């Protein structure tokens, strides 16, 4: 049982959990994730490690379905029955020391991008961060990212805060204005990462994407998280989650993420007693 030390609702649908997991905290590096299971009847769900200290692992969770709704009912002092990690390959960042890097995150992807931006900033990369949200109510980690970047650009789809529009627009504008990036890291919904690659590819800026496939074990034994990268089959949980964005088949990845849409709705209905269509 992994004890919840702290639970904070960052906004209506985003929760931060600080979880006591010393073994994982000791080994975790940016880009890695954990898998947790709530209880005996629970499913195994992956969450990226947002930060660590000596004892604890922080994860940031968006309420999107049955398990995350039930997680929202937990409080400090409660625990997760199973909490395993760190999983996946750490993001390769050290070679970007002294380079110009742009980190592009969308929505909850911000929580995943944060440890990478922080690490890059610490090793002396020039870090620009572009963060996109639907509206100003769901903005997270603004202060943390300001402290971990040279320039922070926030966009909202509805213009309620920062620039209006998508992250891809800002990225395109910055490149047009003459910003020279050696590398772009992007984390968010697959469609957003696909669009980021569409911006960077014509300029030949190497782009790392962090894939968020459906997973079961997270240790490479089932292939549920498989995707096509450069024409080859890869498992996001052990070969990734980071991949060369120019080589990922995003359309296939987006299709695979819809594999359980029907069951997820059924699951939410059972929990809420109402019909949801999203």
């Amino acid at each position, binding site marked *: 049982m992994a004890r919840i030390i702290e639970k904070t609702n960052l906004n209506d649908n985003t929760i931060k959990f600080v979880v006591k997991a010393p*073994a*994982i905290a000791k*080994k975790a590096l940016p880009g890695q994730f954990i898998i947790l*299971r*709530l209880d005996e*009847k*629970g*499913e*195994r769900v992956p969450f990226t490690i947002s930060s660590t200290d000596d004892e604890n692992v922080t994860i940031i969770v968006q309420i999107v379905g*049955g*398990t995350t709704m039930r997680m929202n009912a937990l409080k400090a002092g409660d625990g997760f*029955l*199973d*909490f*395993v*990690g*760190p*999983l996946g390959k750490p993001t390769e960042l050290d070679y970007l020391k002294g380079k110009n890097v742009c980190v592009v995150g969308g929505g909850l992807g911000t929580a995943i991008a944060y440890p990478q931006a922080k690490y890059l900033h610490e090793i002396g990369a020039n870090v620009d961060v572009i963060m996109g949200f639907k509206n100003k109510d769901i903005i997270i980690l603004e202060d943390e990212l300001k402290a971990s970047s040279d320039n922070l650009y926030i966009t909202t789809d509805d213009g309620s805060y920062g620039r209006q529009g998508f992250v891809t627009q800002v990225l395109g504008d910055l490149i047009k204005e003459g910003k020279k990036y050696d590398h772009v890291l992007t984390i968010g919904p697959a469609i957003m990462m696909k669009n980021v690659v569409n911006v960077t590819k014509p300029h030949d800026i190497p782009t790392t994407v962090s894939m968020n496939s459906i997973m*079961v*074990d997270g*240790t*490479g*034994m*089932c*292939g*549920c998280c*498989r*995707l*096509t990268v450069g024409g080859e*089959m890869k498992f996001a949980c*052990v070969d990734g989650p980071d991949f060369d964005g120019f080589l990922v088949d995003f359309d*296939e990845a987006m*299709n*695979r993420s*819809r*594999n*359980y849409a*029907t*069951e*997820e709705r*059924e*699951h939410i209905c*059972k929990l809420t007693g109402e019909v949801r269509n999203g």
Partner: protein
Amino acid sequence: MAKFNMAKTKVPMPEQDPDVRNKNFDEVSLGYTLEMAKEEASRCVQCKNKPCVSGCPVGVKIPEFIHLILEDDLDGAYRKIAETNNLPAICGRVCPQEVQCEGKCTRGIKDEPVGIGRLERFVADYRNNKKYNKPVEITSINKKVAVVGAGPSGLSAAADLAKRGYSVVMFDAFHTAGGVLMYGIPEFRLPKKLVQKELKNVIGLGVKLQTNTIVGRTIYIKDLFDQGFEAIYLSTGAGLPRFLGIPGENLNGVYSANEFLTRMNLMKAYKFPEYDTAVHIGKKVCVVGGGNVAMDAARSAKRMGADVTVVYRRSFEEMPARIEESHHAREEGIKFMNLHNPVEIIGENGWVKKVKLEKMELGEPDSSGRRRPVATGEFEESEFESVIIAIGQSPNPLIKNTNSDIDTESWGGIIIDDRTMTTKEAVFAGGDAVSGAATVILAMGAGKKAAENIDKYLSEKDK
């Protein structure tokens, strides 16, 4: 001299009716009563050369335990089996006895062999159903050994090491120990409660279990030595699924058998939404492969209400599955499309719609001694909504990827010497991690042998 029962056939084992059991997940075979067990036990002629024992990978003293059943000494029979076998309730159920002990039985020359597996199962179940079992007395020798992977091989090694007095910790990546016994073999063939009972028997020997710990991620081999473990046994299995490498394999509705069975067995997706994990199985399911894993996947899909076809590239005779399993599968209404090989999975809106199959014929025998399937150039298409791929597994590459000093074969198997030691000092390996996917009992045999070697290595180190 006692009179032997010279009946030509085994005493039949009660089973659930095929049409009833293909709709539930309860155990298919119900096991012998004491009367049935004694009747079957008396078919053993107690021959002097005991060929059955040589056919058992862990050398169970078969005629001796069978004799004790006839003497009504079931506790004695259990102790006799347990001298060499740490998980008898499991072996009695899942061993391919026809190519092991029973394949060598003297009675099998003329008639059906003695039902050794059924008798072992009977004795183990009797013991596991007892309320109180006397703990084994062990003298501790105050030396630590780590076992990585708590599948059949790791459990067997841990039990044997504990009996020799070592302080053993088993590390497992999953939230539950048991490996393939928990995530792979279905409930209707191996009830999970029973696996947990056998696991308890191993823990009862003083073995510690640490789940949710991935060696190579949560903790490294180096850390284990730093923590005072003097030897390590790697029994990480062969859990990496093989795919066909054909177009359409990443369509929705295509599963590796590992994923499908893990969802079903470990996560209990057949009880969704009572359990949170879902499984999406269409009305028409194609299972590719002819081994036990293919049979397990097919029979599980059938129990979810699907119309299931097993597609296998050789003929029924070459199928590597345990005879009892393919027989049970047929009884339960699974269809077989032999001498067919999938060449493409065709989709519609991102989901499986059809499978394109090439007809095969049999050529010369290959290195495995089985006749090689040869492509005919003739194709046909069949409609399916789901495809489950069960064409084998390779060793998990995590140990190899995080330990450059542990050598592996090109296909991933960990290389060991005649002491079962890897190329890294004091690190031993066995089971599917070394051999590639094989059987539960061979993995247990390997664990047993490794325990013996570890004991020898650590005792000699002290001298």
